[in-house]
């Protein structure tokens, strides 16, 4: 049964991707990309990667699509026909694809438990992580503890992207009278529903943040979901009122502090005499130490991701409002 679902999803993905090649209407392209992202999230779910599916749905389909739509609002929605031939790209792609297909012919069969990938490193995570780290969710254990350094790098990537976007676009405050009316601003139904839903979304973000040890979720997803709550608020009430709630300056602080929180856990364990990011040093009992460590670093991740994503959105949105005024 799972194979059939998988096959159907893959077929849909292929259709979506092919359609994107030929469409010239960029709005549809971006929408199809959102669909592509959701479909791949379903495939991830079908292949047991619950955390990945969650992240893809919130980060890939959610934030990426919103940012792309924001860009389209500024750059126009039609792709113009290109003059140069599509021969060379086709050849490049075919050669690359052929090499990959050649590579697949020797791959371990799909799903076989005896594959080397399942035999060498992973068994320790599966068998020992409950004893060594004390969390039922192995993905969180590996992400935050065994490969915590990767995750630190990842948080830094998000931070770097925020710095980049802020330096490129900047966040401008609009004067009152200049803010253009998008038609949503005095919209009674939206206002009521948004006010009802936003607290629920934030509550859900907190649940995802702190439940990530036991089920799918964690700092990344939680940060993105919390950012989504404020994105909704911005869309309904306008940027100016959102700045009153969360100011861009405050977000810049938060983004930095999230990284520092993460790194300081590492430094602290160094001062306790262990290696960098050795959570066992954080408490007398190693398992408790692992627990503290993971909760704190996930918090750092959540803070940075939330602040970075929201600042990036602010930057795009303030550009859009600016261009509406002009």
């Amino acid at each position, binding site marked *: 049964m799972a194979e059939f679902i998988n096959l159907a999803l893959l077929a849909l993905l292929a259709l979506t991707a092919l359609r994107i090649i030929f469409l010239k209407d960029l709005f549809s392209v971006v929408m199809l990309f959102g669909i592509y992202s959701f479909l791949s999230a379903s495939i991830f779910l079908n292949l047991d990667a619950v955390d990945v599916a969650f992240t893809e749905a919130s980060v890939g389909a959610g934030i990426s699509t919103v940012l792309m739509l924001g860009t389209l609002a500024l750059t126009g929605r039609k792709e113009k026909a290109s003059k140069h031939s599509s021969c060379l790209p086709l050849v490049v792609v075919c050669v690359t694809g052929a090499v990959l297909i050649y590579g697949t012919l020797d791959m371990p069969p799909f799903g076989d438990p005896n594959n080397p990938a399942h035999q060498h490193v992973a068994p320790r995570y599966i068998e020992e992580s409950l004893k060594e780290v004390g969390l039922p969710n192995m993905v969180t254990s590996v992400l935050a503890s065994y490969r915590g350094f990767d995750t630190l790098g990842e948080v830094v990537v998000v931070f770097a992207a925020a710095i980049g976007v802020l330096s490129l676009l900047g966040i401008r405050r609009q004067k009152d009278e200049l803010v253009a009316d998008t*038609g*949503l601003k005095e919209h009674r*139904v939206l206002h009521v*529903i948004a006010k009802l*839903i936003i607290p629920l979304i934030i509550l859900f973000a907190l649940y995802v943040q702190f439940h990530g040890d036991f089920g799918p979720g964690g700092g990344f997803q939680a940060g993105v979901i919390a950012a989504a709550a404020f994105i909704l608020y911005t869309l309904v009430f306008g940027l100016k009122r959102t700045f009153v709630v969360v100011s861009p300056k405050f977000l810049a602080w938060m983004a930095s502090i999230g990284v520092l929180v993460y790194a300081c856990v590492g430094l602290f364990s160094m001062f306790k005499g262990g290696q960098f990011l050795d959570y066992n040093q954080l408490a007398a009992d190693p398992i408790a130490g692992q627990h503290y460590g993971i909760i704190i670093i996930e918090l750092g991740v959540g803070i940075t991701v939330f602040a970075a994503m929201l600042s990036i959105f602010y930057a795009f949105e303030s550009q859009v409002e600016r261009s509406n005024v002009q």
Partner: protein
Amino acid sequence: MLILDIVSALLLIAGGFFGLSGAIGLFKFPDFYTRVHSASVTDSIAVILIMGGLLLQTSFDINTAKLLFIMLFLMLTSPTASHALAKSARHGGLASMAEAKMDEQENNNNG
């Protein structure tokens, strides 16, 4: 248990049917407003039926509560989204097919 399964299956099938009809409507209907209308069929009745079917599949534990929450959430958000879509289209000056026809006739009469 068997009865529950049958009811659940029926609900799921009905939900699937409404989902499909919404999708077909989205393709076949002539203008924006009728399309929003058909899409909101998927949003509302299909979601309720499918969620109901899934609810009967659970063993009435925490998962049931989660499904109920999802259903509540969807019933709040999807009509709002349809409403906002239609209203923005109106605000943006998009005419429905009937109006477009009337305009055309008026133009013809005047011209």
